[in-house]
């Protein structure tokens, strides 16, 4: 594809570039502080609060919101819903970027990041759910890289290599769904070991299932949300197939999200009944729990259902964004808000500004890399020299 002329003539000092530039500079400065002064200088982590937003947001939210990759590729290649084909590549790309950023953020969080391969090469702690998470994330990142690679190979003109990878599509997709099922659920299961620290309304033997099912909601909503953003900023990059299918993707994914949200709502209520924690609903934590359950599960479920029936694309897109916020709220609740609920407020955690700066920095890097890739590689359009796979 020829480079559009206006891209060359675009001024460098756009508001986007200025804001992104400031974030990157601040991020780099904080990075230096983090790796020379340690966690104490950059975080509000404490002995009571060993996990902050670098886990609560960057890991828990990041992995959930990167679920679009496995959800979309499964819909298209396994369930045979070919009408979603144009959504696969953007979803794989954001999934791949999402997981890369998760791993990048983990380097900030763990004390000795250069030892991150130790669980695989030095000593395996197989009784740990974190081992399960680490193994699956590492493998899935590899799978996503391979799934994404045809786009880069088309860009670079590596025809034969691309042919080989394209033949692996089904196997990679199945592998991706297996790994995603495992680590999405295991992120929830991480907290199973601490029933005395997580508020009873959020602690449940079903935690793993909750995290897995809500990751499907996150994936579906993120695909709609990202597509909305892409249409706004990269409309000129989209080919006829992408534009023709876009509304159908939003309608189809919105419908699926409505159903999954309904199922999720039911199993959440089952969890309360099973643990008999109804009494807690009358407390302040209960009120917040109800905000999450009614405001961020039942409401988007209803809104998705209505907007799909009315074919109201605008409402579908707003609902998708709302669901994404709901996932953030849920993961924050499990990881930070309802965790250590028993401690006095003086011992509770609130992020240091540098922690927030790094989280924003990591997301910004993601946006910048996404922007580079969609403007250079065949993501939102099919490369004219290659057959769709």
């Amino acid at each position, binding site marked *: 594809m020829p480079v559009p002329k206006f891209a060359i003539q675009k001024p460098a000092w756009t508001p986007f570039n200025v804001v992104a530039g400031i974030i990157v500079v601040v991020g780099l400065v904080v990075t230096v502080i983090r*790796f*020379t*002064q*340690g*966690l*104490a*200088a950059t*975080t509000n*982590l*404490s*002995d*009571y609060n*060993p*996990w902050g937003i670098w886990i609560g947001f960057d890991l828990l939210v990041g992995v959930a919101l990167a679920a679009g990759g496995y959800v979309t590729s*499964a819909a298209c*290649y*396994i*369930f*045979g819903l070919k009408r979603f084909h144009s959504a696969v590549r953007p979803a794989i790309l954001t999934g791949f970027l999402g997981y890369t950023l998760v791993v990048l953020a983990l380097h900030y*969080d*763990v*004390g*000795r*990041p250069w*030892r*991150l391969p*130790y*669980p695989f090469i*030095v*000593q*395996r*702690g197989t*009784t*740990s*759910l*974190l*081992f*399960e998470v*680490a193994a699956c994330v590492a493998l899935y990142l590899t799978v996503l890289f391979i799934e994404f690679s045809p786009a880069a190979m088309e860009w670079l003109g590596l025809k034969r290599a691309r042919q080989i990878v394209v033949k692996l599509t*089904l196997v990679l*997709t*199945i592998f991706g*769904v*297996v790994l995603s*099922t*495992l680590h999405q*659920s*295991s992120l929830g*299961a*991480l*907290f*199973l*070991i*601490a*029933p*005395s*620290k997580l508020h009873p309304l959020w602690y449940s*033997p079903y935690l*793993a299932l909750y995290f897995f099912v809500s990751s499907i909601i996150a994936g579906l909503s993120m695909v709609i949300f990202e597509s909305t953003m892409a249409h706004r900023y990269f409309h000129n990059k989209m080919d006829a197939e992408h534009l023709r299918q876009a509304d159908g993707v939003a309608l189809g994914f919105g419908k699926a999200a409505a159903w999954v949200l309904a199922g999720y709502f039911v199993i959440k209520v089952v969890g309360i009944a099973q643990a008999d924690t109804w009494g807690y609903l009358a407390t302040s934590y209960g009120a917040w729990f109800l905000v999450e359950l009614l405001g961020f599960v039942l409401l988007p479920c209803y809104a998705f259902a209505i907007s799909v029936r009315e074919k109201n694309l605008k409402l579908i897109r707003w609902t998708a964004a709302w669901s994404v916020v709901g996932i953030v709220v849920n993961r924050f609740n499990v990881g930070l808000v309802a965790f250590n609920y*028993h401690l006095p407020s003086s011992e509770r955690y609130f992020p240091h500004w540098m922690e927030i700066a790094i989280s924003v920095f990591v997301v910004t890097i993601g946006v910048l890399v996404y922007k580079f890739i969609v403007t250079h590689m065949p993501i939102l359009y099919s490369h004219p020299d290659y057959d769709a796979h």
Partner: protein
Amino acid sequence: MSISRRKFLGWLGAAGAGTTLGRSAHAAGTANFSGYPDALGVLFDVTRCIGCRKCEEACQKVNGLPAPEKPFSDLTVMAQKRRTDSRAYTVVNRYEQDPGVRGPLYRKSQCNHCLEPACASACFVAAFKKQSNGAVTYDESVCVGCRYCMIACPFEIPAYEYDQAFTPRIMKCTFCHPRLVQGQLPGCVEICPAEALTFGKRRDLLRIARERTDRFPGRYLDHVYGETEMGGTAWLTISGVPFRELGMREDLGTTPAPELTKGALSVVPIVAGLWPVLLTGIYAISQRREKIAREEQAAAVTAAVAKAQAEAKAKLADAVAKAEKDKQAAIAKEVKKALEEAAKSSARENPAAAAAEAEKKPN
């Protein structure tokens, strides 16, 4: 190759021994683990503790920990609730009682050395180890610093060296494992001037604790904290006031930490084994559905074509028949016309005869 009878029997014996060993190891994996038989422990008697902080001091010395800002003799630090941190493996807290009725109580906290430690279960590099003498030890050389052990520990004991940029470690009481190995007492036990700490085999300590609580029911509550909490701990505590008044959680339950994650972990290989089958099945069904749709479409097209062809054929036959009929009709018409013409011309030649004929006609 010939095998002697003796050699063969020897192999059989080895195989038999192997099976037996394997079975016993397997049994240990599924049954409840109630601790190593001769594991050591410490009984802490709250009623005896005088809050002198000598144990804190000894701990700092024998473990080579950094000296605190205020000396150990300064008891004012106990005005605030403290916890174990990267500079202190053990701390003593003061809990005020009803003034005039009873003086303040003191409680020492340190790693309780669980029989089935949450930290060891949670660590993804297996840096923690439950030693056969009862100590839960930590291997700094493999630690990645994920701090999941701190999330997992129900007693909130492990601390982290957040201020270390390059070599941060988890810091926690080792039960003075290096000293135990050399036959010495843990630093805190050795120094305690009030005999609030009793060191020995855990099963003996349980009996001693029971003797005290049974003999002085007014002085002690009938509960040995650590006997069953989180599956049991090497350190045991007895007290005259409810443990929650000493900052100890009474809602931990008796389930050892590994039990809590066992179910989730057991699902992993099942998903890995079944999901590919299920997904391939769904793929096959969707493929087959597409194939059938294609075949049905093809069949419908063939049928439609055949029908159209038959119709066209019938139409053609009709048209041919009609044309034949038209032709016949045209011939008949022409013949009739010719006959009429002939009749007319003969009438012109012979009008009278024609007229006569015409008159005859109405009859």
